[in-house]
């Protein structure tokens, strides 16, 4: 097909109007570990599988869910090192906004600026797109918000979404289970059940990570003990 001749150069369109490198980046995301997010009426939850390559890895040292600000958290599917770079840039942008306006950055603004960074890497020389999609969860004056940002730099607001290996099953499950008036604890249960859907092996507090933010506007990653409690409730 004509497309393959254009797949090496990021900044060249293929005849079908695609930037094939971005498609490949999305493939990298699609083969990453599943992650998902659910927006409840009074908060947002994000969660991800944390499958480590060997039992010898110290799982406490791995943290896939990160803070961008005290009231905005993020999780990813795709390449971990690319995620680290984006987190670093986003944190810096959030802090620059705070320094200028002495006000915490609204979620939409931070998402937009992060997406702009990702877009820049699709239109510059000598770079490649980021191999991650992000799920950004935050709570500001506009209430709870959940955004997905793709390697192309496009972003969408979601009520509930999933990314990674198990995306189609997870999204189907979420479509059935999601209700508008869900509360945060229900959403956490639903998130666990959704992860369970495509989980290979036994789900436990050591191989998933959950982050939540409620009306207190403080984003927190749950401790393994808290995850165990939720898992017990789900059984």
């Amino acid at each position: 097909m004509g497309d393959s001749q254009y797949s090496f150069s990021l900044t060249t369109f293929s005849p079908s109007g695609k930037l094939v490198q971005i498609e490949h980046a999305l493939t990298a995301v699609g083969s990453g570990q599943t992650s998902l997010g659910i927006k409840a009426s009074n908060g947002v939850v994000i969660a991800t599988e944390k499958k480590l390559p060997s039992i010898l890895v110290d799982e406490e040292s791995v943290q896939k869910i990160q803070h961008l600000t005290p009231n905005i958290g993020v999780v990813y599917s795709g390449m971990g090192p690319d995620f680290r770079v984006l987190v670093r840039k986003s944190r810096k942008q959030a802090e620059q906004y705070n320094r200028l306006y002495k006000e915490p950055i609204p979620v939409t603004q931070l998402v937009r600026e992060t997406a702009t960074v990702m877009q820049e890497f699709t239109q510059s020389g000598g770079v490649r797109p980021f191999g991650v999609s992000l799920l950004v969860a935050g709570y500001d004056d506009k209430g709870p918000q959940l955004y997905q940002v793709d390697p192309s730099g496009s972003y969408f607001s979601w009520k509930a979404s999933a990314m990674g290996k198990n995306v189609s099953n997870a999204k189907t499950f979420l479509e059935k289970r999601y209700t508008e008036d869900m509360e945060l604890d229900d959403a956490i249960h639903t998130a666990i059940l959704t992860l369970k859907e495509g989980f290979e092996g036994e789900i436990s507090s050591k191989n998933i990570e959950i982050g939540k933010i409620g009306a207190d506007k403080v984003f927190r990653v749950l401790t393994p003990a808290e995850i165990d409690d939720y898992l017990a409730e789900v059984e």
Partner: protein
Amino acid sequence: MAMQIFEYNGSAVVAMVGKNCFAIASDRRLGVQLQTIATDFQRISKIHDRVFIGLSGLATDVQTLYQRLVFRHKLYQLREERDMKPETFASLVSAILYEKRFGPYLCQPVIAGLGEDDKPFICTMDSIGAKELAKDFVVSGTASESLYGACEAMYKPDMEAEELFETISQALLSSVDRDCLSGWGGHVYVVTPTEIKERILKGRMD
């Protein structure tokens, strides 16, 4: 005679807090040292319906700084789909002034606005962005010393809009009368949650 750059054009700006309202007033003289050039110079500008800024000091910087701030606020409005809160605007002005720390804008801003829950907010800062918040009044310009005295004597808390107008007008006119570089009338804005009242004062025209 040594030229003092902050006194080159002459100015007087004052803002006062009332009960769920604020007033901001300025003189109208534009001079070149001892010569009066204009008697209708605009020192106070509206950023949006609930935030006003008055700038004293060198007139060219007053105009340029105002244009830069309106530019920044318009972009903010487009990006964030909301107006800036007065506290946020004050932080922005402070940052913009400090950017020019070693070649500053020769202005002293007075910022007044209605914040959340219609709570009035006033502040002033020096020409390199050091903020000074106050609960009662703030002053700036060549007549600032007289203004401090007049405001301290005439101010009382929780005045309603009409009484606030009278108080700030008297404070302004009596202060600029003691300052040869400011005067030629006054320009007063009284802002409540529901309306903005703009009035011109006629004082001693000298």
